[in-house]
């Protein structure tokens, strides 16, 4: 029973990991740029959720979309103001640009909100359900299933719609896409917007059951790295499978090895994976 419980917790949490990681993988797949500020986008979304509830008395049904919209705007802004100018420049500039953004966001948050941990009241979206001995919190269920649906939706958007085809065209060959009449900049800005919006939703959902602090983004960044690497860089379905797998691995290692070392297990897995199979388990070489 305890194993089933751990698996269920891991699956639900893993779906949320999958959602924000698919944002990272989308940005990477579109323009070969790693967003080192990805974890801090999640942090920002968590604060948006927290302050919309405490200051504006907004319900989750309102503040989750709100976080998505705000982060979408931030993503587009970051692309047009920063990434567009560095993405074909030297490697150092590419890496430093989003890393600088990460520092800026993290320490502005520290300065503005202080280092204190804050959290939304528990039971904001309902209590804990008992399903035949399996105890599941409503917040976990809502977060897990919405994340799952949205990740699938993102995948369908990319593979089944005209817009998705245009984005994929730009990711395959910027110049060729331009020749057949697709303007690359709006598509890549859209990728940043969608990638950031994914962190917006995920962050607001995580805030339902997880504490918020300015430094919380770092562990989400590392989780997104592991997930994207495991699923293959640029693959949304890969991120979904990998995110769920990571969630379960984390859940079991926290139980067997203690919460202090659960991050170590995931990080060690990531490093080994990068060394042995950098293209990811499901990625193409």
């Amino acid at each position, binding site marked *: 029973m305890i194993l089933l419980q751990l698996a269920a917790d891991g699956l639900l949490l893993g779906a949320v990991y999958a959602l924000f990681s698919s944002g990272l993988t989308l940005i990477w797949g579109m323009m070969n740029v790693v967003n080192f500020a990805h974890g801090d986008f999640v942090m920002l979304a968590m604060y948006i959720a927290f302050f919309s509830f405490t200051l504006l008395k907004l319900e989750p049904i309102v503040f989750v979309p709100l976080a998505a919209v705000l982060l979408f705007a931030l993503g587009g802004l970051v692309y047009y103001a920063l990434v567009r100018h560095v993405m074909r420049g030297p490697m150092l500039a590419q890496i430093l640009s989003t890393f600088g953004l*990460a520092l800026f966001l993290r320490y502005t948050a520290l300065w503005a909100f202080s280092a204190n941990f804050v959290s939304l009241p528990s039971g904001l979206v309902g209590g804990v359900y008992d399903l035949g001995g399996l105890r599941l919190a409503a917040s976990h269920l809502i977060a897990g299933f919405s994340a799952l649906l949205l990740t699938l939706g993102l995948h369908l958007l990319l593979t089944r719609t005209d817009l998705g085809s245009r984005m994929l065209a730009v990711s395959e060959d910027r110049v060729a896409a331009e020749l057949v009449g697709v303007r690359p900049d709006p598509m890549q800005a859209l990728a940043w917007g969608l990638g950031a919006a994914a962190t917006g939703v995920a962050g607001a959902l995580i805030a339902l059951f997880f504490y918020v602090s300015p430094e919380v983004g770092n562990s989400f960044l590392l989780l997104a790295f592991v997930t994207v690497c495991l699923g293959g860089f640029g693959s949304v379905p890969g991120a979904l499978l990998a995110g769920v797998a990571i969630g379960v691995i984390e859940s079991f290692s926290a139980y067997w090895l203690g919460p202090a070392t659960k991050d170590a297990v995931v990080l060690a897995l990531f490093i080994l994976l*990068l060394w042995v199979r950098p293209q990811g388990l499901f990625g193409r070489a």
Partner: protein
Amino acid sequence: MKALFPRAGFAAGALLLFAAPFLTANPFYQRVAALTLLAAISASAWNVIGGYAGQVSFGHSVYFGIGAYAALLAYAKLGWPPIAGLPFGIVASFALSIVVGLPSFRLRGHYFSMATIAIAALAGILVTNWDFVGGAIGVMGPARARSFADLLFRSSLPYYAIFLCVLAILLLFTRLLQKSRMGFYLRAIGSDERVAQSLGVPVRRYKLYALLISGAFTSIAGTLYAVMVGFVDPNSGFGILISVNMVVMAALGGAGTLFGPLIGAAILVPLGEATNALWGARGIAYVAYGVIIMLLARFSPGGLAELGRFIVKGWRRRAA
């Protein structure tokens, strides 16, 4: 002008470095001067692999932490003077470069940077949960000097002198490297690894050499830090911000240039200390760092060195 300027500039800079701490009797400023040199040592060490060879590592905090812990563990476990831990730190840094660095060199560009972030985070967790090295509490150095060998001074000036010597050795070494075959190899790797490989540069071997040098000097910087401060914990030894400082300072002055990291440190350390003194919050300096890095990446990826060259060029064109 072209031939004269660098030599005169170099002489003036060297003179300023020798004279700097004597220009003020204020112990706070003297301490800032010493910390500037210490930061310049680690940033210059990072520069060998991160600047010249173009491998952007965010994991150098691990080398710094190894050096710092080697010093204070030599005191806490064996009763030796902390500086006696220096060779142990260097040996451990070599081992780390070979065991962890070598496999990471299969990765290029962003992948390499991601791996280094993860390695540093993993090292931090391991040290925090390892009771033998003090766990989350850290390790203390000697409270008062038992002999001269403990290198405990009330004034910052002796530290300044030590740091200046080490920095001079490192910069001399880097200068020789720049001119050698290895320097050319590293710059070739830094500008395009695949092309370098196709031209017959033994890429992985030379990246490893660069990492061995870079890691050893970073560990020396860690040892010197521990000797001066007399305390280290997982955050001050292995924290991500240790790496960030090195990267930002080197990038600001000019990654892959000889004096770039020193110039970057000379700007950022006083800036950091000033913001701390004014607002008391540690965060503000890093907000500024973030903005500086973004501006650099956007407008002048070569740092101030590139900016300087650009200005001089424009000035010459106008003069002509």
